[in-house]
């Protein structure tokens, strides 16, 4: 029998983490995502599953705790919001450089700087293009509902361990704070230390006599070896781009114009489609679920069908660059967005479409 609950997005992530058998959460309070840590501490996961939950002294410490836990083969996570995610970039690039699996939640708020506590999508570049120093990427999942906040936890760990890479859930203040019906999954048992050893033979679990010591590092002072490693990372990202693209299409079959939007913006666009179609405008939506890897191939195909694409984002226009790259200037691509923590109205989006293309 299905278990349904009314939950905030932030609470859904926390409950999903406990139920997925996550071993450790390390975080630091910041609006609008503090409910993740609050929910976890209230739930006593140390009693429910033995999960470690620790409020760190800073976002920097928290992400480095995640580095260590991941390096020791455990399922670990952290969560924060934009200014805090900026602080975590050091740890994230080390995690990518040491090829460690983990989940990082960003409940995005408006910026730059301290910005605002209201929802935004202005961390797209930071999440998708790297964020920290060095050539690396992480898989970025963009939930558009509280249910997806829940479901993407397990998906994150499947992908993170499959590719030994950090996975970011790029949410926003609206998805984190809003309440929706969520179907709750079953409680999974946390892996034992013996099972972790078996699953992650590379992890620092304690050097047994029957193997060489394991080292978790991102350092190689030999440039030739470092370049070989860089090539290996790039090959992994290529593999991810081939195999892990996820997206959803809404009313694209007969579409003459296309919205591209993720997360909260994609929810707005669904209503905008109804408004547009009532006016006789055949509009569809492509919603990237993975922002890296980006659904470029599908966009290229759709560009042969539609007359124009409107990238709708709560930012000054970031994803729109990837949309343009995908369609290679074959059709007009425009951006519409609101900033500073403002969510566009469905009507505004339709107006923008009309202004830019009609």
């Amino acid at each position, binding site marked *: 029998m299905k278990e349904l609950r009314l939950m905030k997005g932030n609470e859904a992530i926390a409950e999903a983490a406990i139920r997925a058998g996550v071993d450790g959460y390390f975080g630091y309070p910041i609006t609008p995502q503090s409910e993740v840590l609050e929910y976890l501490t209230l739930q006593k996961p140390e009693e429910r599953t033995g999960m470690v939950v620790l409020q760190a002294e800073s976002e920097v410490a928290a992400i480095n705790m995640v580095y260590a836990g991941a390096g020791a083969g455990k399922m670990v996570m952290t969560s924060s919001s934009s200014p805090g995610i900026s602080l975590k970039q050091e*740890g994230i690039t080390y995690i990518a450089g040491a090829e460690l699996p983990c989940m990082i939640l960003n409940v995005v708020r408006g910026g730059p700087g301290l910005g605002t506590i209201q929802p935004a999508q202005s961390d797209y570049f930071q999440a998708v293009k790297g964020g920290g120093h060095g050539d690396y990427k992480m898989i970025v999942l963009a939930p558009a509902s509280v249910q997806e906040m829940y479901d993407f936890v397990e998906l994150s760990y499947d992908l993170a361990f499959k590719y030994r890479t950090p996975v970011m859930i790029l949410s926003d203040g609206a998805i984190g704070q809003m309440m929706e019906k969520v179907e709750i999954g079953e409680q999974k048992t946390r892996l034992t230390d013996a099972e972790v050893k078996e699953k992650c033979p590379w992890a620092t679990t304690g050097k047994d006599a029957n193997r060489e010591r394991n080292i978790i590092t991102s350092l190689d002072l030999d440039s030739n070896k470092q370049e070989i490693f860089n090539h290996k990372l790039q090959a992994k990202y290529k593999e991810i781009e081939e195999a892990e693209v996820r997206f959803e299409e809404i009313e694209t079959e007969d579409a003459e114009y296309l919205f591209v939007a993720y997360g909260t913006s994609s929810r707005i666009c669904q209503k905008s489609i109804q408004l547009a179609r009532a006016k006789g405008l055949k509009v569809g939506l492509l919603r990237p679920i993975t922002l890296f890897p980006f659904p470029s191939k599908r966009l290229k195909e759709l560009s042969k069908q539609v007359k124009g694409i409107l990238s709708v984002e709560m930012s000054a226009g970031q994803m729109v660059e990837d949309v343009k790259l995908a369609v290679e200037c074959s059709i007009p691509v425009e951006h519409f967005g609101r900033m500073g923590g403002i969510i566009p109205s469905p009507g505004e989006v339709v107006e923008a479409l009309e202004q830019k293309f009609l």
Partner: protein
Amino acid sequence: MAENIINNDIVKEENLVYKKTPLLTDKPLSYCPGCGHGTAHRLVTEVIEELNAQDSTLGVAPVGCSVLAYEFMDIDMQQAAHGRAPALATALKRLYPEHYVFTYQGDGDLAAIGTAETIHACNRGENITIIFVNNGIYGMTGGQMAPTTLPGMKSSTSPYGREVETMGAPLKMTELVAQLPGTYYVTRQAVHTPAAVRKAKKAIKKAFENQKLKKGLSFVEIVSNCNSGWKMTPNQANQWMVDNMFPYYPLGDIKVPEE
């Protein structure tokens, strides 16, 4: 006659009076001749061997001269971002509470960029061991001023000597963390003489054994030299350390558990 004795006559099991612990790898140390790191590494690995804990010890290497500590210790290790070693050790210990977990850090790493991580790991009373090698300088990056650089001491970024008025006084991290309820055992040692080495070994062993008691963090500072950074010969550096570092950083236990 002495000239008739060849090497093979000497290198025999029965003649062995000293050998390196098997937990030190065969890789040649990257430290400068005369540096205290080699001895400190040896003591840490000897203690792990004596505790029979190769398979249940997780070490954390810092950024600094000992960034490659994992090359020399035959145990599972993680290399931390600069200053973050106590955060790593916190997570490792929480996730593997029965393992021995230690960090091995220098003074730039622990007392400058990692101050927050150090103080909070100590304050939470993490059941870990911190080995803090203090040579009053950034060695790896080429002899820059550290928080621990002595007043008047020259470095590449305090070429006219450290001025306390503008650069602050040397930070006594060990005395500082001893004030925190979360630390269980805090001591300052050195490795410049055989007697000092024996004392330091005892302190490190105690600091590891304490982890089983789960009563808080054990912190072992090792005041050491940096003959390259100080621009001295190894002997001069050791003497300078005795004459200048020890008065500011006096050796001995600072916080000892009540019996």
